[in-house]
């Protein structure tokens, strides 16, 4: 009964957000402050604001949240009450971030999202990978949030206010501005899983797929992009921060795309792809121009649609087939079984992947082109950052097409190579023993799960045209060429039944084990050292104090010899000494 209540509440709440966004559309920007507390010179309070960015984000959050809540009605049967409650709480926190005008109010939403993410990744807490993934996600984002908090301090104290609408870059000193924005950037890097804090997002995949769609594709990880967009004039006023952001973004997009090309499980590919696409949004923001900001937000919206769609499709595969590992899925592709049995899923996943790859006509094509165009404008003006961003985005577009086509082909199509390309994925997978699985029971998902897929697939096409079509034909042709450049190697490898995965990419550049060795192992050692120190050093002092008392009394006890003569001798000596002293002092 409670589960039903929460299910209804969840769907209703997300619809409410959509209603809210619709009501606010076109309204004049406004801010309201409440619950102010003065602390010394500063005021710590809550405040909300509404403007175009808010409405856009509310719409995105509302649509994705509704899709995810409806989808979960069919997907999730284990502990649904807590699941829907947490997803609703998460959505509320995201709304808080989006409408907040006070840096602290934003921080509350920011961190509550992190807590909900932890609890939802750990939804299947019986599984070890879910438990460790949840902890890793929370700790890495918490570490980044410390930097975020310090950034709020620097900016707030430097500007004399914690209200976003009152932060005026012209009135803040340059040093404060740079330090503050760099620290905020630390928080953004952690929340949006950019290098060097990128390892938590792929490990968050043991969570339920709708959670991955909502939190780790559309909303929470996009909160970093939103933050920079919200504080854009503050960030744009600091050249150093923009350069650092550009470097981080370009490195991340390439690293993540390479890792996606070597991942062997659908959700992991999508997770790395998310990291890569977020990096593209950040690179657009790092250009420092209004076009860059617009392109980033455009890509955020389209990405929310197609990435959410793709994760939900992965969820269908998990729900119907039982696994999302390529080595297992590929066994269902004989005579096209998988794509014939799961027709709607196949079609919508194709749309999603096409949009992600940037196939012309789909929304992803338009948003990626907007980014390339903004970068080209900057590069054209002679900016080094612009050139770097341009080249990185182009290279990433090709890589994106590569792994999208790779994923699509290996999941749904039987490779014409001998024996279905045995050896491409076999190494070390337990489910590899199944030779010919029983596909007679394979059905598509219930309509509750398919309806959101269709909606998001339509969005992945239509969103490209919503803002009117501003297309630079040259850039369009270049990006199409890049798509082909990436798609062809994937196709030819698939035809040959090979999937070469360089060890470096498969090991994801060894970052995770490095962090384990650099951070986890020393901290555990220090913990043992501290406990030993408490027991053997500080405890020793306390025990020594007690022992001193005992030893002193043992020493004094030796005076009590029981021999009267000893006592009398001592008395006589004492009297003589006192007499001498009296004489000396008296004289």
């Amino acid at each position, binding site marked *: 009964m409670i589960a039903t209540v929460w299910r209804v509440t969840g769907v209703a709440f997300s619809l409410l957000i959509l209603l809210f966004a619709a009501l606010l559309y076109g309204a004049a920007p406004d801010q309201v402050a409440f*619950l*102010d*507390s*003065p*602390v*010394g010179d*500063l005021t*710590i*309070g809550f405040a909300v604001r509404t403007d175009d960015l808010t409405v856009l984000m509310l719409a995105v959050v509302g649509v994705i949240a509704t899709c995810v809540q409806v989808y979960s009605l069919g997907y999730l049967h284990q502990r649904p009450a*807590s699941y829907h409650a947490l997803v609703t709480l998460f959505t509320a*926190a995201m709304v808080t971030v989006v409408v907040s005008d006070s840096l*602290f109010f934003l*921080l*509350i939403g*920011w*961190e*509550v999202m992190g*807590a909900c993410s*932890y*609890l939802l990744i*750990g939804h299947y*807490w*019986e599984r070890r990978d879910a*438990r460790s993934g*949840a*902890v890793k996600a*929370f*700790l890495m984002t*918490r*570490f980044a949030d*410390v930097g975020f*908090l*310090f950034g709020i*301090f*620097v900016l707030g*104290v430097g500007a004399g206010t914690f209200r976003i609408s009152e932060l005026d870059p012209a009135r803040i000193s340059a040093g404060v501005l740079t330090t503050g924005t760099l620290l905020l950037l630390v928080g953004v890097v952690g929340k949006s899983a950019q290098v060097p804090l990128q390892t938590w997002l792929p490990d968050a995949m043991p969570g339920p797929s709708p959670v991955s769609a909502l939190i780790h594709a559309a909303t929470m990880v996009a909160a970093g992009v939103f933050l920079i967009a919200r504080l854009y004039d503050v960030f744009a006023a600091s050249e150093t921060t923009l350069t650092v952001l550009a470097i981080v973004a370009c490195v991340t997009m390439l690293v993540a795309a390479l890792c996606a090309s070597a991942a062997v499980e659908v959700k992991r590919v999508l997770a790395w792809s998310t990291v890569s696409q977020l990096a593209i949004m950040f690179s657009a923001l790092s250009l420092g121009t209004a076009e860059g900001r617009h392109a980033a937000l455009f890509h955020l919206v389209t990405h929310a649609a197609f990435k959410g769609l793709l994760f939900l499709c992965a969820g269908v595969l998990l729900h119907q087939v039982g696994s999302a590992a390529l080595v297992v899925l590929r066994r269902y592709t004989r005579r096209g079984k998988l794509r014939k049995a799961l027709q709607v899923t196949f079609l919508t996943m194709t749309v999603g992947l096409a949009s992600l790859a940037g196939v012309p006509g789909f929304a992803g094509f338009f948003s990626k082109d907007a980014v390339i165009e903004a970068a080209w404008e900057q590069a054209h003006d002679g900016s080094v950052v612009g050139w770097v961003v341009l080249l990185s985005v182009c290279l990433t577009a090709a890589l994106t097409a590569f792994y999208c086509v790779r994923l699509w082909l290996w999941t749904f199509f039987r490779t014409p190579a001998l024996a279905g390309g045995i050896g491409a994925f076999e190494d070390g997978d337990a489910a590899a023993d199944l030779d010919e699985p029983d596909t007679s029971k394979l059905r598509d998902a219930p309509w509750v799960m398919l309806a959101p897929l269709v909606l998001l697939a339509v969005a992945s096409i239509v969103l490209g045209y919503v803002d009117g079509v501003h297309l630079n034909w040259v850039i369009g042709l270049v990006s199409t060429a890049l798509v082909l450049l990436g798609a062809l190697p994937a196709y030819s490898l698939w035809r040959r039944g090979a999937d070469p995965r360089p060890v470096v990419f498969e090991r994801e550049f060894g970052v995770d084990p490095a962090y384990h060795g650099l951070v986890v192992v020393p*901290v*555990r050692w*220090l*913990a*043992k*050292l*501290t*406990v030993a*120190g*408490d027991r053997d050093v*500080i*405890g020793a002092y*306390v025990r020594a104090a*007690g022992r001193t008392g005992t030893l002193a009394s043992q020493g004094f006890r030796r005076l009590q010899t029981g021999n009267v003569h000893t006592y009398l001798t001592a008395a006589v000596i004492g009297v003589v000494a006192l007499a001498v002293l009296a004489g000396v002092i008296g004289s």
Partner: protein
Amino acid sequence: MNAILLAILVLPALAAGALWSIPAAIGDRLAAAYGSVISGLVLVGALILWPRTGGWFAYVPAQEQLLGDAVHPLEAVIDVPWIPSLGVRFHIGVDSISVPLIVLTALLTFLCCLYSLKITPRIGRTRSLIALLLVIETGVIGTFSAMDLVLFFVCFEIVLIPMWLVIDIWGDHHDPAGRKRAATTFVLMTVFGSALMLLGFLLVQRVTGTFDIVALTNSPVAGGHGVPLAAAVLIAVGLAVKVPLWPLHIWLPDAHAKAPTVGSVLLAGVLLKLGTYGLIRILVPVLPDATATIAPYLGAFSTVAIVAGSLACLAQTDVKRLIAYSSVGHMGFIGLGIATMSPAGLRGALFANIAHGLITGLLFFLAGAIKDRHDTSDLRAIGRALYARLPRIAALLTFACLASLGLPGLAGFWGEMLVLLGAYDPAAWLPRTTFLVFMVIAGLGTVLTAAYFLRLVRNLCQGDPAENPPAAFAVDLSRIELITWAPLVTLTVLLGVWPGLLLQQWSVL
């Protein structure tokens, strides 16, 4: 007003005396009910005292104005001569700093008595336990309302012997030697600290000629060297044992691990506040220049406490010891806030005091509940997958852990945040770089705090249910537990989303 303060001060002690005079045949339930009624009355009285205007009597130190320039009178003042030959007066009064703490004390004592209605100790003798809790309540309220140094010291000491008895008699019944050792260490270390503190008070009296806190605050002791510095160091060290500040914290883990549930709740929720309250009430206002001299050291030890407490938690296998070390870390934050001597820092310290009392009280209630159900507090013996075996209690434990690690939106965040803000921008006469280093280390300490709490949740609540079958007598949340813990949960959330409820009390700070 005066009558109410005097009433809530002496009522518990008189009630305890009355309770002891009744023959021991009185049932456990009746004793707990009696205790609940008395502490409930005290709670009502304390709430009536809640100051209507946000203010505290402020002072102007020798160099410059530290904390506001409005002089509001104390509320509910009683000022009569007590020991005229020594110049000691029975002077009590409350203001916006002490009343929230008094309300916290009354609330926690009330909840402990309610809890004892259904959940009585294994060895019985609830009558004496309730009486001792009431005596502790008197001592604590006396300390929080004392406006005379000797009266402060006397009330400070009143709580020690009852707490020693509580730990020694009703403590961990598996380990008599251990609980005796824990209780003795607690008493001896705290008495040693109190002796040093008393020496400091006497030095202050030698310099200024008065024991009266109001008079001393209005004309503080100038000078940062010599006798004022010696007095400040003595008082600081003496209170540091109680706070507890690293490295004088070693009594806390043992005392908590061996104490009964209600003992731990009061020890963590109330007794630890005595030390920090003393620092804020006596050290900072009465000896401002000397405090400015020792503030960097106080900050340094507090920062070490944050990190050392968190690291020690990461290696713990006993639930109650883990929460005890987490208290060491949290009190480190409060100590750092006091050391910054800035409006944000002091407000953060005061807020964190209340928040820690609520959250750690809840944590110890939960730990006690889990320990009672499994007859052990060792993580390895309790097993895992409490989400499957005790779902509601495990959910509350997760909530309490998230609150304690300082998640924004819950009460624990605001105190820590304001302390860090205070460290970012400390008082003008303190070395800024040092405090920035402290701030960074303390920030990293919050990550460690998150790490150990998540480790606790992972090792206790999560896990494979197949490997951890439910224990025979472990039933989920009972009604009395829900009633007792609901106020703590509600207040944690309320203070998290509406910190102004408390912060506006200290707007003059």
